[in-house]
């Protein structure tokens, strides 16, 4: 008793905060704050400023919101986003149901296929559909005209309907994956007990299955709505020529104007932000509430109940095949076809005679293409690594600690979901034009933009993987004598690896596709593949674009297939 030694451990606050166990999470939190809050603050600030004038003003808002045209934008954006969300949702949910809950043939083979559209850059999908549905050069239109003897093209992609079709198709695999996960995680005993209580199959479906899926469905719809609002490729490539202006295309145009109307773009961006933030807020609330009230629907994977469709299973199989053709087969075929021609024409036997490899030669020897490919690779790897590392620490804070403010960190990391790429681009321009960090116009500003934009994805995979790690596994590290950092590196990270890798691959792939922020931030030196495709298409080099697209898609598919074989993980985590 007399010899109680007080440890030499310093207990004062500065020393305590300098331990790596505190310092590293603290730095991660600060970085997160910097990545999300600072650009948004700059956006707000910039929208109240006019070039060359002192002080703040609301003149941008007056210019932007006093025109009737802006309300047409609002209306168009709303219709476009809603239509897109509904189409994607209807397709994705029916596919998920067919694949998860029925005995339809071919369903097992469908998973791999559904990943392809996620890999294909949106700009290429959009271009492919222009090749297919343009009133003048669209293959489907010319084909139908010839077969049915029509005078006018039956479809016009350059319309709000065409835009919804292309974007909705494009987003449907995401809904499919979400709903498959929801179906998978539903305990079949819940349905079985309804049936044992005397409910018929349709009544079980209506009263139990659908009710249980409601949170997943509603949040899925909301997030598709937000993505529709934020979409850039379709509004730019189809909406602008089709004279269907929406928020994103208008922001783009006002920045491309001479002189660029930064202030007005900012004011419009604020409007877009507000709407999508409202959507994200609702989504977040729904997810949180669903987490509490419907906790039976999360967690373990169950073996689902499979419904025997009888003969109808051939009809559902046909649906899968048609969908596969529409979403992968047709777009890829038309790109491949165009890539082999010296100038674009619709597929025909006669066209075979013009086949040439000169587009491929052109792309392979085009110096800008090499530069863009190198930049895209560096950016994608950098962004994927940056996001994964940062969100691993943030997820650790939000999942494993009881630190005050962890809920705010969770929200911050999720915030960029509600920041459209263009808006992010606008705020980054402001930030790095005024901020004394000379990275504007370099690849660094793109990396920062990508990291910010994809934080939510990294956060989602890492935090769901972090939840799986039993608290005692880390505590065993500490009681074994390992300090925080050693435990994190040697225990937590290795256990996190499946989620970490899945997140990394996903962010790598979506970074290659990224266009909406790059279009504002990239210069001729820091150009990227998706932007190069966009520029080449705008300047009329359709067949070269097709060749580039074919090569890009094939290499991405190979990369993803190899990596997911190796890590065995991709699939449903995206």
């Amino acid at each position, binding site marked *: 008793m007399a010899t109680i030694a007080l440890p030499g451990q310093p207990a004062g606050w500065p020393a305590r905060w300098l331990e790596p166990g505190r310092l590293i999470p603290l730095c991660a939190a600060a970085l997160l704050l910097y990545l999300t809050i600072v650009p948004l603050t700059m956006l707000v600030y910039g929208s109240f400023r006019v070039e060359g004038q002192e002080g703040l003003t609301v003149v941008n808002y007056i210019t932007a919101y006093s025109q009737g045209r802006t309300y047409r934008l609002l209306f168009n954006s709303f219709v476009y986003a809603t239509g897109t969300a509904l189409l994607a949702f209807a397709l994705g949910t029916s596919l998920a149901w067919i694949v998860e809950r029925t005995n339809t043939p071919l369903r097992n083979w469908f998973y791999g296929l559904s990943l392809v559209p996620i890999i294909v850059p949106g700009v290429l999908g959009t271009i492919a559909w222009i090749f297919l549905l343009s009133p003048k050069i669209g293959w489907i239109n010319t084909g139908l005209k010839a077969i049915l003897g029509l005078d006018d093209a039956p479809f016009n992609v350059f319309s709000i309907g065409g835009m919804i079709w292309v974007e909705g198709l494009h987003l449907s695999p995401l809904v499919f994956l979400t709903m498959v996960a929801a179906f998978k995680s539903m305990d079949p005993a819940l349905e079985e007990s309804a049936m044992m209580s005397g409910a018929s199959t349709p009544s079980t479906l209506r009263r139990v299955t659908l009710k249980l899926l409601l949170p997943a469905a509603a949040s899925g719809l909301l997030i598709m709505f937000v993505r529709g609002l934020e979409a850039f490729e379709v509004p730019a490539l189809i909406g602008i020529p089709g004279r269907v202006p929406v928020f994103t295309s208008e922001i783009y145009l006002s920045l491309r104007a001479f002189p660029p109307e930064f202030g007005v773009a900012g004011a419009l961006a604020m409007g877009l932000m507000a709407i999508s933030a409202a959507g994200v807020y609702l989504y977040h609330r729904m997810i949180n509430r669903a987490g509490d009230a419907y906790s039976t629907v999360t967690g373990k994977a169950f073996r689902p109940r499979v419904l025997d469709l009888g003969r109808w299973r051939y009809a559902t199989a046909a649906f899968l095949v048609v969908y596969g053709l529409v979403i992968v087969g047709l777009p890829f075929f038309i790109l491949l076809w165009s890539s082999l021609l010296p100038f674009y024409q619709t597929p025909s036997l006669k066209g075979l005679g013009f086949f040439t490899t000169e587009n491929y030669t052109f792309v392979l020897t085009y110096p800008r293409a090499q530069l863009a490919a190198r930049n895209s690779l560096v950016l994608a790897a950098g962004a994927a690594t940056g996001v994964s590392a940062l969100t691993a620490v943030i997820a650790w804070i939000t999942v494993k600690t009881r630190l005050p403010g962890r809920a705010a960190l969770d929200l911050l990391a999720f915030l960029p979901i509600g920041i459209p790429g263009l808006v992010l681009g606008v705020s980054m321009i402001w930030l790095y034009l005024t901020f004394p960090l000379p990275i504007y116009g370099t690849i660094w500003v793109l990396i920062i933009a990508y990291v910010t934009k994809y934080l939510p994805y990294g956060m989602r995979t890492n935090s769901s993987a972090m939840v799986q790690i039993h608290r005692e596994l880390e*505590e065993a590290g500490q009681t074994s004598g*390992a300090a925080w950092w050693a435990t994190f590196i040697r225990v937590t990270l290795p256990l996190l690896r499946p989620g970490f890798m899945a997140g990394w691959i996903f962010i790598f792939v979506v970074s290659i596709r990224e266009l909406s922020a790059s279009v504002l931030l990239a210069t001729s030196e820091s150009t990227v593949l998706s932007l190069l495709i966009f520029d080449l298409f705008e300047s009329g080099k359709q067949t070269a674009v097709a060749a580039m697209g074919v090569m890009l898609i094939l290499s991405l598919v190979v990369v993803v297939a190899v990596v997911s074989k190796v890590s065995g993980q991709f699939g449903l985590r995206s």
Partner: protein
Amino acid sequence: MADGSNGRSLAVEDLVKVYPDRREPVRAVDGVTFEVEDGQFYTLLGPSGCGKTTTLRCVAGLERTDRGRVIVDGEVVSADRPRVFVPPHKRNIGMVFQSYAIWPHMTVFENVAFPLRVTRTGLSRAQLRSRVEEALAMVQLGGYDARMATQLSGGQQQRLALARALVRQPRVLLLDEPLSNLDAKLREELRVELRNLQRRLRITTLYVTHDQIEALSMSNRIAVMASGKIEQEGAPREIYQRPATQFVANFVGSTNLLEAGVRGPGSGAAMCLETAIGQAQASCPVGVTAGERVTLSIRPENIRVHTAEPAGGNVFPGVVEQLMFLGEYLDCRIRVGATLLLSRQHPTAQIRNGDQVYVELPVELCAVLSDTHGISSSAYLGEEQERAVAP
């Protein structure tokens, strides 16, 4: 490992841990004090939510305490004034978790080597290997070192967790319900093994469990906890035979409780009590005087059942109301007046439903609880005890 040196290896003084809650803060541990002597096996026993695991986690440093001190091997590792907090990795303790917390990404060898590697013991590769192999041999896992930890069975994982906790020869071993995830047979086996290992190594051990059999069979001393406080502390026999409170009597084993009033001195050292089933004699704690309200506790296995009236005192006539055959023994519920008494008989006992019998409560086996510490009996009594208590 520490041997021979006397004195206390682990001391917890007036420990308080408060969890903030939306409505009002919960005092998970509320002023707990105990000492574990060197080489002793000390158990915190209690129902879930009694604060035993929180106490253990405070000792480990996995929770920060709000008040009180934790002293390990003479070193204050946690105190409120002056503020001291030694992080868990600097406390040199070994801990076995309820889930074993075996790292699935490491082999058996790597799991055990981890504590030696991260603490930079300066061991050579060969020394490290021999230390790890020694630890594995100690828990009968020799030869398993190259396996992935996930390929082990539950019992083997439990042993592996023990080897990992012991490998760096910690000052104190902490065990958090280590046997609760095993099936009954294996649990019995490992109970014996764990006890023998602890006695052999003479390592100071703090054990947390809700299982009275584990506590009684393995411990040198037991502290029974409820609502964040220690209800009673003592050797296993003392806890079982002389429970201090109704809670302890009920939680450790099952018992019959009879409300009683003290009438006066009885024969010998016993006192005469007035209970719902009649007058009974029992020896009371020192200080109990006539007129006081007390509770008489008698274990089911201590109630003797006779078909003919035996000679001697503390005998009451009753009717067998329910019989339940449980394999190892026969549970008889016998109505005496308005009270149901639970008696545990050998399964061969010739007793039938409806039999008129005589129950004998041997004076030396009746315990009298004088201090209920304000714990209301109904909150903790099981259904059968509630019925057994006089209405």
